[in-house]
């Protein structure tokens, strides 16, 4: 009976709850309630049903052979275990998740590198009091005025003022 039952892995719900982003909190709560319900159901059932007292029945049932027959058939009976169809799917999902996670972490690291670069640039900038307009355009390329495209002041579309 214990041979085919995979031991339940202890899930640290507190740590799990910490890492859930607020947008997925509802799903997490649903999962937790389901898990709790199942645990309660499991705990309510005994592991083995109580043994039938064959001696008592043999003494009391008058019909000859009935109890013996029952006993023979009962011990020969093998209750089929439910087949597990879903664990394979979950494993596959886990593999996929691992892959996509690795990709996401890569992208995230690239983003962090970009941010760090920008941060360094901003930190190493010369203070505004010592800047000329040329230095300003160098430091913030988006503030350049295109005197070639808009030759007349204010050198940018009126809507951008």
């Amino acid at each position, binding site marked *: 009976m214990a041979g085919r039952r995979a031991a339940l892995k202890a899930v640290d719900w507190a740590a799990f709850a910490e890492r859930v982003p607020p947008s997925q909190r509802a799903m997490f709560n649903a999962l937790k309630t389901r898990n709790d319900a199942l645990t309660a159901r499991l705990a309510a059932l005994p592991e083995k049903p109580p043994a039938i007292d064959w001696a008592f029945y043999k003494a009391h049932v008058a019909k000859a052979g009935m109890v013996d027959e029952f006993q023979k058939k009962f011990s020969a009976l093998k209750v089929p275990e439910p087949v*597990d169809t879903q664990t394979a799917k979950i494993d596959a999902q886990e593999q996929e998740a*691992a892959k996509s996670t690795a990709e996401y972490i890569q992208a995230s690291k690239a983003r962090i590198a970009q941010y760090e670069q920008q941060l360094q640039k901003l930190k190493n900038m010369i203070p505004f009091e010592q800047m000329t307009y040329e230095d300003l355009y160098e430091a913030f390329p988006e503030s350049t005025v295109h005197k070639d495209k808009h030759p007349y002041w204010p050198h940018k579309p009126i809507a951008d003022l």
Partner: protein
Amino acid sequence: VLHTTRPLHTTQQSLAPLPPLPEKGGEVRHGLIPEEFFQFLYPKTGVTGPYMLGTGLVLYLLSKEIYVVNHETAAAACILAVIIYGIKKFGADVAAFADKLNEEKVASAVAMKNEAVQTLQAAIEEEKKEQWRVEGRSFLFDARRNNIAMLLETNYRERLLLVYNEVKKRLDYQVAMQNLKRQKEQDHMIQWVEKNVIQSITPQQQKESIAKCILDLKALSRSAHAAV
């Protein structure tokens, strides 16, 4: 003499950013004459030297009529007086106002830069947090697998229990049937025996038994009286 062979603006020092311009211009006395002139003449002529020089020059120009006093001199004097009065009275305020305008521009630029720095740092924090969050994905799959295992186990136990209950019900039914039959037989027999006994009591026997009962009661009452 300019050394044309010396290369300009090529060394590391010249590629560096220029040092900032000084905040204030050179010192001047009376708004016109640089302080360096007075310092230049101080060793030879002391404090009053440049003033003597100036007075002498002005008197020389006037007396020799190198500068001729005419109508325009009066006009120039009046205009200069007004200008100097205006500058002395309002100069500081105007300067402060212009400085404030500049300050505001610089402050807004600095504020923008600070905001950008804050945003970047917050973004970096967010990314790190998301990476940490992602590490917890194994919990989810473990929980789901647990759910499945629990379901299966529950199902199996329920099946075992069902088998046990069914068998027990059938056996109990047999036992209960037997007990019921025996009970009914007993009751019926008792009733039959009672009925027969009552039938067999003849009227003569009844009278005799009643007389005997009355005698017994009298005896009992006598013994009760005696006890009291």
